[in-house]
């Protein structure tokens, strides 16, 4: 119990820090309550759920073209949460070509792929110019959509870049989670969850791993 004694004997400075910790721990709760109220207006009380209809969105890509999810009904749609400055996004677009390779393997099978940048104005990697540059530098064969308000990101409960979602031909969310099973910023995974789930969705099979824990930088929402 030596450590315990130290813990109890640590004096005023640490007690003050502890009080601050309590305050910050509950700040999140309050934020959440406040947000719940505002979310009622839009009818979205919780984030998207696997097995439920995917939240609607209409967003502009870096060329100003509007993309409405409803118009893609009948296609399988992959969403890739995106921030070109995030080391985990760079891993899959610079060190490896995971995203584009996966897209290329499925593009002729009725799969539409979009990246979504939910970074708020002023955040690293956010906005039109940086998204446009990344799309050019990385020769992305699919559009990057801009969600600077973060509304679409929050409707999906997107937490990380990357955070991956697959929507089936019925508009139902079939997969949510990580791109692969290596959570590091520099090593390739041995299982590509999106590839695995896409194969199963296209074959109308049950997705065996429909939810995995995403990894990466936090989505840089503004509020």
């Amino acid at each position: 119990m030596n450590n315990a004694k130290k813990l109890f004997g640590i004096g005023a400075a640490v007690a003050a820090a502890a009080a601050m910790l309590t305050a910050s721990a509950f700040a999140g709760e309050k934020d959440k309550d406040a947000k719940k109220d505002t979310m009622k207006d839009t009818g979205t009380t919780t984030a998207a759920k696997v097995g439920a209809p995917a939240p609607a969105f209409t967003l502009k890509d870096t060329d100003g073209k509007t993309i409405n999810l409803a118009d893609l009904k009948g296609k399988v749609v992959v969403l890739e949460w995106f921030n070109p400055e995030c080391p985990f996004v760079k891993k899959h677009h610079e060190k490896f070509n995971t995203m584009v390779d996966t897209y290329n393997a499925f593009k002729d099978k009725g799969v539409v792929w979009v990246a979504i940048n939910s970074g708020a104005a002023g955040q690293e990697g956010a906005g039109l110019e940086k998204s446009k540059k990344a799309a050019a530098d990385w020769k992305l064969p699919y559009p990057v959509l801009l969600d600077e308000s973060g509304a679409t990101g929050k409707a999906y409960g997107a937490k990380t870049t990357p955070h991956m979602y697959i929507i089936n031909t019925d508009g139902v969310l079939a997969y949510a989670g990580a791109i692969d099973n290596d959570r590091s910023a520099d090593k390739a995974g041995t299982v590509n969850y999106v590839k695995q789930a896409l194969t199963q969705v296209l074959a109308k099979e049950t997705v065996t791993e429909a939810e995995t824990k995403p990894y990466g930088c936090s989505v840089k929402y503004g509020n």
Partner: protein
Amino acid sequence: MAADAPVRATLVLDRPLSAPGDTATLGVSFDIEPGWNLYWVNPGESGAPPKVSFTLPPGVIAGEIQWPRPERKVLPGDILDYIYTRRVTLIVPLKAGPNYDAALRGALEADLWWLMCDKEKCVPGEAKATLGLTSASPSPDAAERLGEASARLPVVAAPGVLSLSWEGSTLVIRSAGAESMTFFPKPETEDNPTPPKILTEGAARGDTLRLSFPAPKLGPSTRIVGNLEVHGASKLTGYFDVAAPPPPMSSSAVR
């Protein structure tokens, strides 16, 4: 690493390893600029913990990293992270084995990688650091860093301080006299599922904290592992290891 980098890493040691059988405590210490953070062993919903790999002199054995108490932080978008700010020292026990020879004046080499984030961005950092294991007594700075970190390590709760019980598929943690409690789940595994509602359930006012799990995630090999921060009388009163056995199999909520 540049002096103005957001995070700087140093190695510290509490005492030299002079002969076989000696033990020492190594600290991998990070100074973190205001506004920036590193991540706990379980970073939460975003981020990544620092990675540490050692090259050790012959005969020296390193134990597992011990992670000091982090802070619970909720980011915009309800992203729950477990972070370190200002300064953190990861603790690594060292031991000189039978074939250790101090006359070789061995040094430990550490390869460090970390992800550091502020509210706008995340940037990786890395460093290589070397520390002689036989030389001189520790600096006051080393002692301070190690002492501070040791005081932030979890301890086994004395009998009666915590009670763990299951109500169906809800784990109920009670600590008599607590004003608030925060649960820090260890990294998720099949046997250690993270409670899906940890954002709201993981920090509770009062003497009871409830963590609800989907029944199918619980089974005979379940072991809910984490650390619990307890506050009472407006101050931190304890930081404990929690390892909850599986719920009773007779419970109808369990498969």
